[in-house]
């Protein structure tokens, strides 16, 4: 019964079961299962009033079983059931030509491209601003308050003006939408990186001082590596917000394509299921993007010798 032999019993269980318990698949499935269950319950609960109404207007007799069945198959439900959403997603992705405007992947791609462009520009801008703020006292004092103020401007209100102005100077297509993403996503990066660049311990800065290291050297050899945990955390938030920005940016450009356009169109024509499938696609995109940043984080941190 010593510590060394403690671990033995666990390793003697079948590898498959063990992998399932320790891996990600099982927990995700269970949590997913719970969420689906709650979702179904809400589907019935939220759609029931309308359904009962409909029965009464038609004057039909109904049982609880009817109610459950029918609430899950409404055409304009308050909350569509999971299988309705899945069926819609399946139909509009796999079940449609990939190049067709009716294919959800096509719209996801449109949104993704401006998300990524906006995210890249936003992260770069955020890091640059943070560098300026950390290194220049005048910038620290004067710019930061206005960066904050800029973020309190409701984007949907100024987006049309931005788009119009950019159009007027000959910029159209991907870039204006991406700039909306940039506008939203640079902020978490600025906040995180200002903190990150200032996170080196005093003695670490002192060490660089004894070497009379230049600002650039201190930056690359100390501030930057010390800020990386903050960078990745900020980037996770930024990429998610960037997606929101890309979708918002699709509206003032006429909402012709992209997930935002799908969301709006779904809402204008009362197609709840379509809204939810676009929502799902957007959320899935976000999860993937955040996951990718997380993988990058783990790879970089491992190379930087982080204690596992």
């Amino acid at each position, binding site marked *: 019964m010593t510590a060394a032999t403690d671990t033995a019993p666990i390793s003697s269980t079948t590898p498959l079961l063990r992998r399932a318990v320790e891996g990600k698949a099982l927990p995700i499935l269970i949590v997913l299962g719970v969420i689906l269950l709650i979702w179904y319950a809400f589907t019935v609960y939220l759609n029931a009033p309308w359904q009962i109404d409909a029965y009464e*207007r038609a004057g039909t007799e109904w049982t609880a079983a009817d109610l459950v069945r029918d609430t899950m198959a409404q055409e304009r439900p308050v909350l569509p059931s999971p299988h309705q959403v899945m069926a819609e997603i399946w139909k509009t992705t796999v079940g449609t030509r990939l190049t067709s405007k009716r294919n959800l992947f096509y719209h996801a791609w449109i949104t993704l491209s401006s998300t990524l462009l906006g995210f890249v520009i936003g992260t770069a801008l955020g890091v640059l601003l943070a560098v300026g703020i950390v290194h220049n006292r005048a910038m620290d004092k004067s710019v930061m308050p206005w960066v904050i103020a800029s973020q309190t401007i409701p984007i949907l209100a100024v987006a049309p003006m931005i788009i119009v102005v950019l*159009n007027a100077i000959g910029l159209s297509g991907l870039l204006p939408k991406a700039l909306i993403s940039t506008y939203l996503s640079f902020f978490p990066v600025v906040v995180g990186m200002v903190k990150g660049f200032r996170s080196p311990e005093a003695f670490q800065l002192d060490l660089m001082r004894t070497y009379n290291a230049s600002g650039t050297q201190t930056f690359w050899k100390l501030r930057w590596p010390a800020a990386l945990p903050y960078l990745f955390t900020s980037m996770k938030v930024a990429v998610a917000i960037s997606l929101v920005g890309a979708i918002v940016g699709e*509206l*003032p450009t006429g909402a012709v394509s992209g997930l935002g356009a799908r969301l709006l169109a779904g*809402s204008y*024509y009362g197609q709840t299921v379509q809204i939810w499938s676009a929502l799902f696609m957007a959320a899935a995109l976000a999860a993937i993007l955040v996951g990718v940043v997380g993988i990058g984080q783990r790879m970089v941190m491992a190379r930087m010798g982080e204690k596992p």
Partner: protein
Amino acid sequence: ADDVTLQLKWVTQAQFAGYYVAKDKGFYEEEDLNVEIKPGGPDTAPVQVLVGGGADVMVDWLPSALAAREKGAPVVNIAQPFARSGLTMVCRKETGIEKPEDFKGKTLGTWFFGNEYPLYNWLSKLGLPRDGSENGVTIQKIGFNVDPLLQKQADCITAMTYNEYWQVIDAGLSEDDIVVFNYTDEGVATLEDGLYVLEDRLQDPEFVDTMARFVKASMKGWMWAKDNPEDAAMIVLDNDATGAQTEKHQTRMMGEIAKLLGENATLDEAAYKQTVDTLLQGGSDPVITKEPEGAFTHEVSKKAM
């Protein structure tokens, strides 16, 4: 060919079928025009696009065009393909509303963006304050869909004859379950989809000529769409990049739109006058404070005939 950019007021749908048909059927080409159509949306103020130089001509409703004009954006109506208004108020019958006077104490959902003014005018005609009191009505700003009526969050909502009305029907409410009030019948109608350009550009005879050809070809598109509603709906569907529109709905919309079209593109001055009067009253805060001048011209539509 002359380049023309047209800014629509709303997303691609049969409401704008005439323009899409004209483009698709080559009517613009025949007039030596190269037309680009930009769809709008809830977030596009077409006036801003026009002023910002993003478009040469726009589709807009007269109330918002007049408001913009008074605020310093000199837009001018050059043609008015829609002679009639499609604006209605749809109520659930079970709320007990049978006539406009029954609005008292009820909740009305409306779009804003200028659409609230005819309603305000109507309410002040009825003598109903908008303060949410027992003797007045509660106004809610609703999104551009009919959910508030279906979810019973509002007793009545704004709806277009060609769109939202049918969504209510599609949702399962029958014609017997609802009551529809037409703005035209209530005498508070305002002029809807017209074509507008910036005033100073009309100084240029070449531009006037281009616009005349544009209006001409557009009306040709409208007439074709009126005669071939199914095909027109299909053309609209082809131009819908969202891939969200359905054939059934667009065909039906085309049929309703056809009822609103006038004989030609000339603005009816009586209808114009009524719109202006409506807007000048507008309850406590009128949309426009003084009689507009030079807000329309027949020059282009005359040339187009």
